[in-house]
């Protein structure tokens, strides 16, 4: 395999690599580009904006007073007509400043961050206890639980949405905002717990047992050995698992749409973006800017966790 490549082989190799990378990255560039383009520039196939247009970001981040002007339906249809020249579109748009109802992006971001963070913390904590027990201790029904966890993880949310919704209605949680949020938190917990247990279980097994043994000989109890030896040693993996759970909750749409529909103040980002997208047309710049801002924390998270993540993902049959 290591023999020298001919120039032709090199060209083919680099061409293929570049093609693959472009295929993967292009939609992101498209999003970034459109978020920075002025509406008149949308039809321009080049990714490079003719004028840098930051209004969408300013508006989403609350840096600009929003003007409450609606573009009538008929004008909207005209604007969407491909036969119309760009100059005419520009003239039309000038009459109606791009406004619309206030989209409280900051609030949705805070909602999403809060529920994702809480989910991540609880899931990692509960999973580390359970994973340690399954990986290290002998107790009845141990292997049943080990296999059951994965089994459970593969049961997709779609199959559980009706019974979970009916359960929360029966218990009375669905009738109040706080109850709804509690239901949603519990649901995110079960969506993340199994994979967190699986990843941590695999990790704990790689820690030599002699470390705990030594601690216990020094007079630590089993529980103390776990807290003082295993947990500190596992910090990087615990962080990775936390990020993974955080991102699952950050991305979740299905249950958020089922439970939070009537509580608009508590919408999470996926739900809010979908509502924004379906409510109006010709708001590509705002939609794309909102997409970029939703994407950013996830990219940062994964850059932080990437080193362990690739390994952790391939070790388990992780969701994908």
């Amino acid at each position, binding site marked *: 395999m290591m023999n020298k490549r001919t120039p032709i082989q090199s060209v083919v190799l680099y061409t293929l690599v570049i093609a693959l990378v472009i295929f993967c990255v292009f939609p992101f560039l498209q999003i970034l580009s459109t978020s920075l383009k002025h509406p008149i520039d949308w039809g321009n196939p080049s990714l490079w904006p003719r004028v840098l247009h930051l209004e969408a970001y300013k508006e989403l981040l609350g840096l600009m007073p929003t003007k409450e002007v609606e573009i009538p339906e008929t004008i909207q249809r005209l604007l969407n007509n491909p036969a119309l020249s760009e100059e005419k579109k520009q003239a039309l748009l000038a009459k109606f400043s791009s406004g619309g109802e206030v989209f409280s992006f900051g609030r949705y971001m805070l909602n999403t961050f809060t529920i994702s963070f809480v989910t991540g913390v609880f899931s990692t904590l509960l999973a580390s206890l359970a994973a340690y027990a399954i990986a290290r201790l002998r107790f009845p029904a141990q292997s049943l639980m080990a296999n059951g966890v994965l089994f459970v993880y593969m049961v997709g949310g779609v199959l*559980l949405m009706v019974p979970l919704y009916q359960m929360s209605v029966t218990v009375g949680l669905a009738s109040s905002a706080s109850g709804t949020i509690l239901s949603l938190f519990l649901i995110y917990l079960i969506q993340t717990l199994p994979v967190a247990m699986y990843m941590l279980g695999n990790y704990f097994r790689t820690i030599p047992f002699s470390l705990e043994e030594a601690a216990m000989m020094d007079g630590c109890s089993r529980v103390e050995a776990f807290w003082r030896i295993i947990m500190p040693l596992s910090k990087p993996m615990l962080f990775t698992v936390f990020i993974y759970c955080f991102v699952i909750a950050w991305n979740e*749409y299905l249950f958020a749409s089922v439970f939070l529909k009537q509580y608009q103040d508590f919408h999470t980002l996926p739900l809010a973006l979908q509502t924004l997208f379906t409510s109006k047309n010709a708001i590509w710049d705002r939609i794309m800017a909102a997409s970029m801002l939703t994407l950013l924390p996830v990219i940062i998270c994964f850059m932080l966790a990437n080193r362990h993540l690739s390994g952790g993902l391939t070790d388990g049959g992780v969701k994908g």
Partner: protein
Amino acid sequence: MSSVLIKNEARLGLKLVAPAVGIIGLLVIYPILFNVYLSFFDVQLNGTKIFVGFDNYSELLGNPRYYNSIGISVVYLLGTVTGTTVLGLAAAILMNQEFHFRNLARGLILLPYFAPVISVVFGWQFIFDPVNGIYNHVMVDVLHLSDTRENMIGDPDSALFVVILFDIWKHFPIAYLLLLAKLQSVPKDLYEAAAIDGQNAWGRFWHVTLPELKFVIATVVLLRIIWNLNRFEDVFLLAPNVETLPIFTYYQAFSGVVDQGGAAAISVIQLLVLVGLIWLYVRKVLKW
């Protein structure tokens, strides 16, 4: 070890797993059983239930929309499973070569997998937008393959292919990661031996790479089927008019004429298929 120690260890073990197992039991195992129960009732959103026996099932089996969505799901599964596996394998072989900026390339091709669905679907919407999208620009104005700009996502038939392409783009990285990990552990001397036997690159792929990867490829295929059978968000957010089984279930349960009992019945049938697949996975693939 003395029996006291064994007992203590068992007690501690049960204590530690109790919270996690309790929550899973209450919110996964119980709902699965409750779902079976609900499938025999006419269920309203406010919780009222009227027993209807097997009516939900017989209605479902007589509903052409159900068979239609099974058909769409089958096409979706065939397209996405084949696509992600083939592209994942190609990417793994490519990224296993040595070239400049390899680490950068390896990082970049993971981006689609990590990105939230919600933040990339609109980018894809824009690419296929009939007015502004690059797809129509290339097809109509550059290549002249078509005279009219087409609304690829607006039409359910073509939208199915956009959704499949999107899924391949989004999920081939996980197939790639699994395959690359295995590829890196294939002993070099196997390739050298094959080269000495006079095998060219294609022959080495066919006689060394594929047999070595056989097991991982099977794993990837099985996992893709399991995950994509229930895939909801990627399809619904990009093209809600592509009615795969999960989308059909969602519409039954929460929109138009709400039929939660019917949705429960679909879920029960789908769960049976899924259980079969997971059983296969745990039995054949997994050693935890």
